[in-house]
């Protein structure tokens, strides 16, 4: 089994550039139901490690420190906030192909009017133990 992190950000897609607060209430519900059903399915398959949504970019901070004095903490709003991480799923699966399959399903989450939103999902393998002696 291999762990993969499936990441998504706030960027709009070719199909949907509306913030969710402008969707029809029924479409929001369908979207949320879809995400919960996907998590439940992955959990019942024994593939879900963790699924988390992150609090909004309004609460994001960037921290840098040169090791002396006080760290520099930058609060939002950030001009590039659409690139910030919105949420992630960590899955533990048989193959990369399975991770890609799950990512595809997540990308087709329903948006306004039930049309698949086509959210880009970043698929990143988590590094693990060495496969053998080098």
């Amino acid at each position, binding site marked *: 089994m291999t762990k993969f992190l499936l990441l998504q950000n706030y960027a709009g897609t070719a199909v949907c550039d509306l913030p969710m607060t402008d969707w029809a*209430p029924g479409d929001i519900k369908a979207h949320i139901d879809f995400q919960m059903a996907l998590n439940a399915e992955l959990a019942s398959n024994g593939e879900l490690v963790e699924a988390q949504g992150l609090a909004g970019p309004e609460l994001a901070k960037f921290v840098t420190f040169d090791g002396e004095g006080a760290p520099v903490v930058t609060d939002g709003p950030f001009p590039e906030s659409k690139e910030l991480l919105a949420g992630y799923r960590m899955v533990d699966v048989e193959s990369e192909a399975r991770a890609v399959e799950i990512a595809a399903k997540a990308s087709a989450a329903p948006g306004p009017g039930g049309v698949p939103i086509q959210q880009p999902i970043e698929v990143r393998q988590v590094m693990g133990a060495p496969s053998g002696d080098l």
Partner: protein
Amino acid sequence: MTARPGLEDLLRELAPQVLGVLIRRFGDFGSAEDAVQEALLAAALHWPAEGRPDNPRGWLIQAAVRRMTDQLRSDQARRRREGAAAFAEPPAPDVTGRDDTLVLLFMCCHPALTAASAIALTLRAVGGLTTAEIANAFLVPEATMAQRISRAKQRIRDSGVPFTMPEGDERAQRLRSVLQVLYLVFNEGYTSSIGADLHRTELSGEAIRLARMLHAMLPGDGEVAGLLALMLLTDARRPARTGAGGELIPLAEQDRTLWDRRLIAEGVAVITGALAIGVVGEYQVQALIAAVHDDAARVEDTDWPQILALYGLLERMTGNPMVALNRAIAAAMIHGPAAGLKLLDPLDGPLAGHYRLDAVRAHLYEMAGDVPAAVAHYRAAAGRTTSVPEQQYLTTQAARLQAAAAQPDP
């Protein structure tokens, strides 16, 4: 653990009493706790097959002492250190098991500990939960929780707190810490009792169990009774708080027939008993507010003037701006949204950037019919909340108002 429920209840009641005896005798929290856990495990394995001993508490103490002694023998360095400590401490007067539980609870909620450590230690040592169960409830790896508990025990050892009941002012202050720890445990379970984290609700049940135990030990303390009543009256609403899809349902929209009447009756009885004691504290006032809400069969039957008066009292007692926020809602329900909005103005400083202020403003602007302002504040609140179900609720509120404004009723 496969123990039958009756047996598990008994073991969990006896665990802190046995632990108290061992700490008093050996003076070391850490190894005493390990020995008690092993004795409990042995009891859970043997009693169902061999029958329950006549004196379960004595059996457990004997088993734990034996394990503790074995452990001390097998560890030379430890034996020297702790053997010396055991002789150095004057023998404590004999007390009953229940008193030991109370002393242990006071010890676990010691102010030298952070809230997170005190919570973990209380659930383990007094609640008798396993480290795995506590880790699972707080959604952290078991190794992380084991370390948190171990550091908490170390800290108590380092602080040199004697295993005795604190006296006077210190006792009152420690009781406040105990109540706060139990309330935090309850809220951790209650607020996450929606959506994906449903299994965490066990924490609320555990907090109520411990509060019941504390109330039984200190029946004359009004705030202990107030906290227990607050938990019962709040937990009674849990079945109505979540929709079929796991979504959050606010108090005003809950199906009140789903509320647990048995818990409400018990909560009302406890708070009524507490008021007879005379000294009114924060938990009692919060319990009274919960009781007034629970008393309304329909939301329009809510006795808002009473709630407004109680929030006024609570605000004077605490000076907490979150209480002022709730008072503004009650005022709006009686005198209209404009009156509520006016009461929110002074909160811009103390609650700057807090999503609850935006959420309440949104609600009051909606009551006032100002759709654009309501939408803007719902959006702002949705952007700043740190809870998924709340974020979904607030987002949906903004969307619902937008949709209604775009298609006005014919």
